[in-house]
């Protein structure tokens, strides 16, 4: 048969065959050119923002809404922002809120992570507080502001308490669903390699759950930010320093619609910026390194 003829050079044949197959089946990936990135990723949101500004300006210019106390022009809002910048207050507003938000989020991370791990891995804990934890996610965190004010008074601790109550369930739930979605195959493979108990948790379960965890962090940040704004609006108190929420409330008290718009735009911008600068890159990195990011 044919096999006897090929016996002698069988070894080197096999190596060559394999090298050929590997070369044929390996997908070549390159970086996307900068121009394409600009056209596909940057241009669309710029167009959308320009469109919104255009409609806004048109509403004012064509006197469709001609009461500046209801709708100030984009230029008026820009003036307020510029004034705040020139007076050196703008960064102060932003920093007051962002530092609170990030510190609160950091505490939420410290509490939410072990809590999520406990709920995911211990059956009794899951049965006991799992449903409450996911239920808490649907409770608007603004509901925590009145009790937090009564318990802690009008101070920074109250803000942090509200952030924690908003963000901890998101972070913990993200980790729980991350752990739940770990393919059983990884656990079996881990066990045959000797990763059981704590070793299994550290080497297999946690890294495998990372995508869900990061999604939870992202949502946790969104909840932190929202909770903080609610707390700052409701519990504005001069001694607390002016954050973006207080700025919004001050604008309302002064019936200064331009200031209200300024505050809303800043809240939105900061929320998006933190997501774009921290959480989205983190998520992309996690997904890309696992080949889970489909290039669109």
């Amino acid at each position: 048969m044919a096999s006897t003829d090929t016996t002698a050079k069988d070894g080197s044949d096999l190596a060559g065959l394999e090298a050929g197959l590997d070369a044929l089946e390996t997908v070549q990936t390159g970086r996307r050119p900068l121009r394409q990135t600009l056209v596909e990723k940057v241009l669309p949101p710029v167009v959308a923002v320009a469109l919104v500004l255009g409609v806004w300006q048109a509403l004012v210019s064509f006197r469709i809404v001609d009461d500046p106390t209801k709708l100030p022009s984009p230029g008026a809002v820009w003036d307020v922002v510029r004034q705040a910048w020139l007076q050196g207050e703008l960064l102060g507003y932003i920093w007051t809120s962002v530092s609170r938000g990030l510190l609160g989020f950091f505490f939420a991370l410290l509490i939410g992570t072990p809590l999520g791990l406990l709920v995911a891995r211990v059956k009794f804990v899951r049965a006991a507080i799992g449903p409450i934890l996911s239920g808490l996610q649907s409770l608007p965190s603004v509901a925590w502001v009145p009790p937090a004010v009564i318990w802690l008074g009008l101070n920074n601790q109250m803000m942090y308490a509200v952030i924690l109550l908003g963000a901890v369930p998101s972070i913990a739930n993200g980790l729980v669903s991350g752990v739940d979605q770990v393919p059983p195959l990884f656990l079996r493979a881990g066990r045959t390699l000797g990763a059981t108990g704590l070793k299994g948790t550290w080497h297999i379960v946690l890294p495998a759950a990372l995508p869900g965890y990061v999604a939870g962090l992202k949502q946790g940040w969104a909840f932190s930010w929202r909770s903080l704004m609610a707390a700052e609006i409701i519990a504005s108190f001069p001694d607390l320093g002016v954050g973006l929420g207080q700025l919004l409330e001050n604008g309302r008290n002064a019936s200064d619609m331009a200031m209200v718009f300024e505050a809303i735009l800043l809240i939105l911008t900061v929320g998006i910026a933190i997501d774009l600068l921290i959480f989205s890159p983190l998520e992309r990195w996690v997904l890309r390194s696992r080949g889970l990011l489909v290039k669109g």
Partner: protein
Amino acid sequence: MATTLAKAADGTEAATHAARIEHVSKWYPGPAGQQLVLDDISLDVAPGEFVTLLGASGCGKSTLLNLVAGLDRPSGGTITTDGRPALMFQEHALFPWLTAGKNIELALKLRGVAKGERRGRAEELLELVRLKGAYGKRVHELSGGMRQRVAMARALAQESKLLLMDEPFAALDAITRDVLHDELTRIWRETQLSVLFVTHNVREAVRLAQRVVLLSSRPGRVARQWTVDIPHPRRIEDTAVAELSVEITEQLRGEIRRHGQH
């Protein structure tokens, strides 16, 4: 039901058997009472022996492999292995958050290999499966055949005396599978491993094994065994392989046909 899973047995028994399966049965609670999956299976794998377990769906061949791997416990009978066996799955089961090299290093780490030695050993193993440059590659950057070879290197990193393989090439295309058959045969002969290889592919069983064990279905029992003494290197299209495959297929069809009669 005595269940002894010997850990790194150093007695005389370990020297004569890579795995010893004695009167093993397994049942699961089902809707109509207990469902018997494996019925009184006895099978030995000698050190360095290559055995394939062949059977149709429902013969419990994967269940048996899980029992030998220690992932599940038998309902009756005993399984003794010489140390913890390594296990390869139909899916590569490589961890996507690690590179190919780090996957192998994790296996070494969990086995207690010192930090300084892991990198070198991992590269040796990659070289053994002819993937010298793949150390830093992510799993998704590798083709199906390359992934299974990394998985094989990771299994070999465990330095087990017994390698269990659960249809490891079933999801690959025919050309790649054929190449990996040669590769597995080469590695088996170089390393003196014992292999227990599960498949439903008769030709694959004959091409690879020294002994083919046919299991009947529902419940799984050892129906018949063949010793394969066709010399290596074998090809899937060899006449001798084909002839034995025909004989085994006839028997397998007979086993399947019995289930349609009642």
